């Protein structure tokens, strides 16, 4: 499905540009994006190197295990396929915590490390059940404090920049619950199909 979306976005874009006379813009966009992608990867590399180093210390010091034990009842329900005391749980929880506090650049490295642990667990190049669940949690973004939005509101002179926090939390809870439900629904559908 991703192959199709990827190809279609580019094909539709190029065909549309042919009729719309925007081929010059398309050319510009292609080469500008190459630079952008490299820049994003480089700045992500810095964040990844730093946080995965720090989290390795946290793992060795037993802090991640502590976090996993603390939230065990919740995580057990969301990720029933991960065995107890598996290091993936600690990274998943750090990822979720960082997301909640709006630490986007700390959340990504921990999420990626959690993915890596989950891949070691499944040992195949198919997305496992837990991987899809982790992804669903991240795409619906469990934000408690939307720091970037508050900063933008402040900049343009809002009389109460933080007034949107309550509404954002409510919306984020609804979208996260929906993500988990939809994820479960697709899981059981897959299971039923395999069972037939």
């Amino acid at each position, binding site marked *: 499905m*991703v192959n199709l979306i*990827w190809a279609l*976005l*580019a094909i*539709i*874009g*190029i065909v*549309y*540009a042919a009729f*719309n006379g925007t*081929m010059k813009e*398309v050319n*510009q*966009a292609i080469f500008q*994006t190459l630079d952008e*992608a490299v820049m994003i*990867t480089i700045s*992500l590399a810095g964040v990844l190197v*730093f946080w*995965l*180093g*720090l989290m*390795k*210390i*946290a793992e060795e*010091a037993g802090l991640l295990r502590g976090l996993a034990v603390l939230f065990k009842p919740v995580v057990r329900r969301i990720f029933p396929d991960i065995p107890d005391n598996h290091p993936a749980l600690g990274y998943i929880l750090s990822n979720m915590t960082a997301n909640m*506090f709006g*630490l986007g650049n700390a959340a990504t*490295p921990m999420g*990626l490390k959690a*993915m*890596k642990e*989950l891949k070691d667990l499944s040992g195949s*190049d*198919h*997305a496992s059940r837990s*991987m*899809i669940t*982790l*992804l669903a949690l991240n795409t*619906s*973004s469990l*934000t408690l404090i*939307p*720091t970037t*939005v508050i900063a*933008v*509101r402040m900049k*343009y002179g*809002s009389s109460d*920049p933080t007034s*949107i926090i309550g*509404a*954002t939390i*409510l*919306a*984020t809870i609804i*979208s996260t619950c929906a*993500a988990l439900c939809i994820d479960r629904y697709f899981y059981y559908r*897959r299971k039923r199909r395999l069972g037939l």
Partner: protein
Amino acid sequence: MISIWLIPGIICLVLVTATIKKIPSYEVFVEGSKEGLQIAVSLLPFLLGMMVSIAVFQASGAMEAVLVLFEPVMNAFGAPEEILPLAFIRPISGTAALSMTTELIRTFGPDSFIGYLASVMQGSTDTTLYIITVYFGAVGIKRMGDALKVGLLADLVGILASIIIVIILFQ
């Protein structure tokens, strides 16, 4: 602000615990860091490929054309059409969404109905396509299963929830 204290606090907590437990913290840090570099390098092809495709779609003007088609759907929900491009682009491109949110807040004011709506929409969902690309790309997952469907459906629920909540709370 609490956020200024958060990251230094976490760093301090980790280092103090490691030192008390006599863990060779610097060596362990370097060991863990190396993995970060590997992940970043394996990420570039996935990220670059996806970003180029999205950029072509956007620069050609095709994205705007698609948005026009969706206007009646949005109006049916009682949402202003100015918000439509943001709702559409939020799952696809994070930087584009943030610049749109900023533009809406600047034009209509942060405390207007559209300002509130843009703020909540921006804050309550994330860039699904980017997250799938990065998270699965980093560990080399080729078969994504239902991940994309789950992510996009959750985005749809999140966007509709934002609209309904803002209508109830701020209008």
